[in-house]
């Protein structure tokens, strides 16, 4: 099953995919264009992986890491499907990152790889934008690069884990203005999903609605104001986002 959190008629609802439309939790059937998409869950702790695809690491002139390169993201950065992300006027290189998002379903501590899938509630898509101009070499990548307001579109759906036969064999693609700019497969992760759950839960407790953004493959290209960026994970969802500029923000 695929569920979304949406706003419709002044209230927040759970919604289900319904023959190209949405069926709300109260039984109403509405058009997708008439709702505001929220993030499919309210994320608790969010982990993101750097350099978790060898081809992307090479593209950035890094060796693939010997242990997972993990950083955390705060709630301010997340926005839903069909929303807008701000590109500051002074930057020269802001790129999308299409990622498979893993949503934890229950408390996990010291979980072994072979049991890791039991702790997953479902999957979604995230676009983990980065602004390379702001990179500095302290706790890199730092929050100014990776935790900016509006810079992590997430959604549209939460897809039940039971409906995903093999999350380690899914195609990822990004299109900018309908042009294919990034493609890869989750097969090429340096640290696969069970390894990441084993690693994180080896030193801390994971809880329901913690999210792991599993990294992005090769294909980082600068984006411009007005670009429509579509990050898609096969069978999981197609996440649409539009880049806007500083001029939309009148108070700064």
């Amino acid at each position, binding site marked *: 099953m695929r569920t979304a959190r949406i706003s419709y008629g002044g209230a927040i609802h759970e919604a289900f995919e319904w023959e190209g439309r949405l069926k709300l939790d109260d039984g109403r059937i509405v058009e997708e264009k008439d709702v505001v998409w929220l993030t499919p869950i309210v994320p*608790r*702790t969010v*982990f993101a992986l750097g350099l978790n695809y060898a081809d992307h690491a090479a593209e950035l002139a890094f060796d693939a890491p010997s242990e997972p*390169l*993990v*950083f*955390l*993201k*705060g*709630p*301010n*950065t997340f926005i839903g499907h069909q929303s807008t992300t701000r590109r500051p006027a002074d930057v020269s290189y802001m790129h999308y990152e299409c990622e498979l998002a893993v949503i934890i379903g229950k408390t996990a501590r010291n979980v072994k790889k072979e049991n890791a899938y039991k702790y997953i509630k479902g999957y979604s898509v995230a676009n983990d934008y980065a602004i390379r101009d*702001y990179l*500095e*070499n*302290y*706790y*890199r*990548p*730092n*929050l*100014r690069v990776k*935790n*900016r*307001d509006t810079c992590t579109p997430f959604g549209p759906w939460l897809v039940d884990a039971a409906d995903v036969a093999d999350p380690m064999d899914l195609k990822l693609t990004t299109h900018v203005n309908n042009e294919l700019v990034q493609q890869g497969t989750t097969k090429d992760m340096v640290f696969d999903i069970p390894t990441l759950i084993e690693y994180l839960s080896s*030193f*801390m*407790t*994971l*809880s329901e609605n913690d999210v792991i953004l599993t990294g992005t493959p090769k294909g980082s290209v600068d984006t411009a104001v007005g670009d429509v960026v579509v990050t898609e994970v096969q069978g999981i969802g197609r996440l649409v986002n539009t880049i806007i500029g500083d001029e939309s923000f009148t*108070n*700064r």
Partner: protein
Amino acid sequence: MVICTMENNSLVAKGVKYVSHARLKVLGVPELVSVDVGSGTKTVVIDGNEVNMNDIQFDTPITGTVFGTLMNFKGVLEGLAEAVHNKPYLSPPIAPVLYIKPANTFNRYGEGIPMPEGISQLEMGAALGIVIGKKAVAVNEQTALDYVAGFTIVNDVSIPHESIYRPAVQQKARDGFCPIGPWIVDRQAVSNPDDLPIRVYINDELRQENSTKNLIRPVARLLADVTEFMTLNPGDVLLVGVPEEAPQAKLGDKVRIEIAGIGILENVIVDEKTFIRRGTK
């Protein structure tokens, strides 16, 4: 019961003046409780009754996200000396360097701090926590304090680590690694957050002394520079940073952080096998 009286606008009980309004969270009670706290005493006044701190089951008074700031004490940056020009850092920091203490790290006054298996020393990161009261988006330095609800004490516990090149999630995000409390002192009760002495005692021995006078980015400036790219929401906490030469503690050590005008945060280092997570989130 101790009778409290008002003298010159201050609450007085047993001759002790309770100068600051604060809010604290008691385990099992959903709302924050308003109290009056004194300086250097282990008692608080709740509804006119004087209560010993040891008789209160404190809970973490925080509901939002805790953001830490790296290298915001002059002595920390000076301690790195030439290293900031060398690999892998290559140049001194320009913007605030931040990190997140996630919800699993939240801990409370009086609770044990778990020592992970295979680790023998933990770094005690004494930090003033700025508690946000109003949604802060791109605030300017002049009005930044208007967005602050108050101040608290945070022990930003870490497994000691030399390199600060990659995010230290494994060293900083362990369960129980972020005691917060015991309360949030109202902003109005803190006349100058950029002039607060900080002392850390381990087993009653003074091991660190510093002051928020030594911040590279004082409180208002830090809020302005952070909210330029990242909204802080009510209930979020921004740590001003940990002073240089943070002391280390071992299993069984009693750790006390004092920040003048804010209070005292006490915890003991315990074996992680005996640590049970409870309280909020």
